[in-house]
């Protein structure tokens, strides 16, 4: 049976990709950032932790999706994905290999669970997806893991609510649990932490709020479900809203979590870097509330 064994969160600042690609990742500026990932690189390389598949929650930054189509939740069910050209040529990192068996299983399960997924079979993936791979795996010839991209709209308003993201995570956990093959699955939430890339208020950083957010990913509180969008915007800058994606990761870890590793650094480019590794303590999630789908009570009601 497949199982979600850990959750990882990380900022995905494009400059981190540039630093890695240009070999600056241990210089004075980037050294302290990358150093915070050393623990994780060692941890994830150990056979008992090594994931077979990562469900990688990220947002597309006007790369695969332009204004003609804006999916709220899009799940990649394709065989592979090439790095996108974001204006200076594609990053020279390996293609990303998908896991269509698990991805389609999750997509189908989520739709029965009343999540209105968009299924994607072909797309390029931008820094939102490739930078976290770099942070966790450095510069391999091929990524040592299969990836299911889960793209969330956090660009055009409204993005999904924090509560919806958390619930999606719970539904993802149910879906993974019902997949027949033995797989070690991780879920990653990316983006954030506080940053604002626009206007006179650009450069805003709120270390206190960011650390409150990190605190509340740990243990059994579900407070973060209820943080409204306006609070992210006021407290963490206009691009801090990306943190709602971390809640998909957190929701998928179930009732309670333990923190294995935590890292916070300011700045990287315009952004506060946050990174956390979580393990489910009690990974249980509520049963599906839907009629078409997933539980005896619901089935009996049909």
């Amino acid at each position, binding site marked *: 049976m497949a199982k979600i064994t850990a959750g990882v969160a990380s900022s995905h600042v494009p400059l981190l990709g540039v630093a890695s690609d240009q070999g600056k990742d241990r210089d004075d500026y980037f050294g302290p950032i990358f150093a915070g990932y050393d623990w994780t690189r060692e941890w994830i390389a150990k056979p008992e932790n090594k994931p077979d598949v990562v469900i990688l929650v990220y947002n597309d930054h*006007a790369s695969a999706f332009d204004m003609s189509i804006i999916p709220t939740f899009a799940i990649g069910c394709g065989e592979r994905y090439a790095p996108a050209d974001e204006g200076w040529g594609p990053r020279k990192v390996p293609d990303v290999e998908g896991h269509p068996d698990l991805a389609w299983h999750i997509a189908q399960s989520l739709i029965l669970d009343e999540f209105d997924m968009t299924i994607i079979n072909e797309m390029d993936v931008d820094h939102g997806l490739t930078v976290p791979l770099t942070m966790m795996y450095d510069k391999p010839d091929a990524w040592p893991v299969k990836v299911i991209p889960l793209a969330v709209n956090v660009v055009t308003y409204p993005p999904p609510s924090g509560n919806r993201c958390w619930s999606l995570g719970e539904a993802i956990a149910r879906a993974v649990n019902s997949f027949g093959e033995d797989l070690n699955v991780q879920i990653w939430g990316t983006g954030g932490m506080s940053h604002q890339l626009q*206007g006179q208020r650009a450069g805003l950083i709120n270390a206190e709020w960011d650390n409150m957010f990190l605190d509340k990913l740990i243990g059994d509180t579900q407070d973060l479900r209820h943080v409204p969008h306006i609070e992210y915007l006021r407290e963490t800058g206009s691009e801090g809203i990306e943190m709602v994606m971390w809640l998909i990761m957190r929701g998928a870890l179930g009732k309670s979590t333990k923190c294995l590793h935590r890292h916070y650094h300011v700045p990287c480019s315009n952004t506060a870097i946050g990174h956390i590794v979580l393990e489910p303590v009690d990974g249980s999630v509520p049963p599906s509330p839907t009629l078409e789908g997933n539980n005896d009570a619901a089935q009996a009601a049909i």
Partner: protein
Amino acid sequence: MAGHSDIHEYLADFEDIPGTRVYTAARARKGYHLNQFAMSLMKPENRQRWLADERAYINEWPMTQEQREAVLARDYNRLLDLGGNIYFLAKVFSTDGLSFVQAVSTMTGMSVEDYQAMMVAGGRSPEGQRSIKGDS
């Protein structure tokens, strides 16, 4: 549905954040072709044509003249007002060879050096920057 609080209230709050334009539907509609133009610079052949003759290239897009001039002037604050979104506009400054810090700092009224120094010192504090009305 008495006491109903809806999308109007949700959106109204967004106009109360200092120095910030939230990318709502109203902005997305205003900036539609501006952003699609910027998106076109993801293709190397379009970047070449753009760099060879910016004005000729931009005139092919059904944008307002005001939007065109703001792009040519790289006036990013103006572009935000005209419906531009920063992730789309990033294709323009990336094509110019600018980093996010270089481009973003131009919107703050600070030199790039001062902006970078502010970031290294911990970034801009949220104090006094949360609300126009509430002044907090």
